[in-house]
């Protein structure tokens, strides 16, 4: 499936939306407007957008603690997202989930996750549903490099492989799990090598190249839909911000961060679009304006929304 000009512009706009949304969240975190923690996706926008553009609305994703980008790329409503982050009744989880648990099962977002690796077996389960109901859908399972060293990663990739589950495992390798560098957590340099031991294809891709990611996921997803089993895709990228709200970043140098900022996935894609004359300067300004407006609207909506009543405290522990 080739992307037309409008698709590409939409992807650019979505990447920018994630960036601006996260910048607003960063501001709210530092002001204490958001009272919990938050893990920002800035710098990694190409992965969520490239991957989610390669699937359909009815397909599923499982996400992570660093999940705002996945959520937006899956088509979430910014108002409900921002409301959830501010703990409001109008949020996706009615204020009961917060940043690490935003989910919208109806639109295929099976949820962010507070447990590193926690979503990986859940993605397998969605894969079972797809297979048993013959739905021809796929699941994109996002997780970080840290999750690759969780036991459940092994169990899940093996199960997905022996059962040919329609899951695309997408590792967002930003080279750190909190402070732990991949070079001290892995003996292998290329994490995609792990795929070989499960008998599935392993692919390494530039995680700042939205179109490359799109292409790899398209291919993996079509394999999955044809019942040919899962794929493990490792996207190398970098998180620009600290791990979460408080991070002195003693484990990396400013120089390293600066180097990666030069490879900004959004600037890079913008340049591509300008060079191709798909975008003009005026259009980029217009897009910037629209994106900012949508974020401002989300903020206004969230701030005007009520907090959940204490009456809801004990509601929904059990389903009827």
């Amino acid at each position: 499936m080739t992307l037309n000009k409008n698709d590409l512009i939409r992807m650019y706009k979505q990447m920018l939306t994630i960036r601006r949304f996260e910048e607003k969240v960063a501001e709210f975190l530092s002001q204490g407007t958001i009272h919990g923690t938050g893990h920002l996706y800035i710098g990694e926008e190409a992965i969520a957008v490239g991957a989610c553009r390669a699937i359909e609305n009815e397909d599923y994703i499982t996400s992570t603690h660093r999940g705002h980008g996945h959520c937006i790329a899956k088509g979430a409503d910014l108002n409900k997202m921002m409301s959830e982050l501010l703990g409001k009744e109008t949020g996706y989880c009615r204020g009961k989930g917060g940043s690490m648990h935003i989910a919208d099962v109806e639109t295929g977002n099976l949820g962010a996750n507070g447990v590193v690796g926690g979503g990986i077996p859940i993605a397998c389960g969605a894969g079972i549903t797809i297979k048993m109901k013959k739905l021809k859908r796929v699941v994109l399972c996002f997780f970080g490099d840290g999750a690759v060293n969780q036991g459940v990663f092994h169990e899940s990739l093996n199960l997905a492989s022996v059962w040919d589950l329609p899951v695309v495992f997408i590792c967002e390798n930003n080279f750190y799990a909190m402070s732990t560098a991949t070079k001290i957590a892995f003996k292998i340099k290329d994490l995609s090598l792990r795929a070989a031991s499960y008998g599935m294809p392993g692919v390494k891709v530039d995680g700042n190249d939205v179109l490359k990611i799109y292409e790899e996921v398209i291919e993996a997803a079509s394999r999955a839909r044809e019942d040919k089993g899962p794929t493990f895709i490792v996207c190398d990228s970098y998180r620009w911000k600290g791990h979460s709200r408080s991070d002195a970043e003693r484990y990396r140098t400013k120089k390293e961060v600066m180097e990666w900022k030069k490879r900004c996935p959004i600037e890079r894609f913008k340049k591509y679009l300008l060079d191709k004359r798909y975008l003009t300067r005026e259009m980029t300004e217009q897009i910037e304006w629209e994106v900012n407006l949508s974020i401002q609207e989300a903020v206004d909506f969230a701030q005007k929304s009520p907090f959940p009543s204490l009456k809801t405290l004990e509601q929904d522990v059990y389903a009827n």
Partner: protein
Amino acid sequence: MPTVELTYREALRRALREEMARDENVYMMGEDIAIYGGAFGVSLGLLEEFGPERIKDTPLSESVIVGAALGSALTGMRPVAEIMFMDFITIGMDQLINQAAKIHYMYGGKACVPMVLRTPGGSGTGAAAQHSQSLEGLLCHIPGLKVVMPSCPYDALGLLKSSIRDNNPVVFVEHKLLYSGRELVPEKEYLVPLGKSEVKREGTDLTLVALSVMVVRALKAADKLAQEGISVEIIDPRTLVPLDLEAIINSVKKTHRLLIVHEACKRGGFGAEILSQVEESDAFDYLDVPIRRLAGSNIPIPYSPGLEKGAVPQEDDILGAARKLVG
């Protein structure tokens, strides 16, 4: 009403068969459940009947068994997962406690996880400390999980069917020593609702609340006590979460005495919960003597037969405890 004699094992199998026939979204997965029929033979023959799509042998991977059950439940299936021994739920505990139990609440009531985790607990098979635990207390502590513990074939059948139809994660705790126990059950389809206890024997002098295999031991003890002139009322809660406290309270108001018997370690066991709830209720005023608990010793289950028996309440222990309370 026509009846048929079934073992506990057969009763469970019938429940699985009926529910799978009724609803194509119901399927099973677990280790060695297909051709082998499960470590205790519960699913024997279901592979031939329903095929490998619905009777899935998994790799030896408890975390992904629980997690994949949850993921498929979240997306529209009704999985019945088997964990070969209750001890091994600890390996899938993240998926059970942090994920499955919390999703409905954490997602603001907008999604649910209709899954059943069947697992055999309990000692008495000489399998020692890592294959004999009664861990239901851990599970009852977790909001969002339901915990079911049938003590007889009739209940096993009816409760498993209700558990499969429930929209929450249900941990269904079977007992290894009960699998071969027999009983007449209706030929016709029936359900036993979750959250409803049953008076297994009526009596006037003492209320005895027993869980799982302890119901069987308590019933035997009650026969002997009757000969001594002690009339025991035995209540089987059948489901610990939700708990039918009402029935226990009503019984205590009648007998004025309460003994709680379970196999799990006494410390932090579910007996403490029942005791507290009764104390906090208006039944407290009716008590003639303090409530007593008879439960497993606070030790890992030992191997040697004498030690193993000594670790958990036996019929004689129940007799002794009951006499003391009434005497």
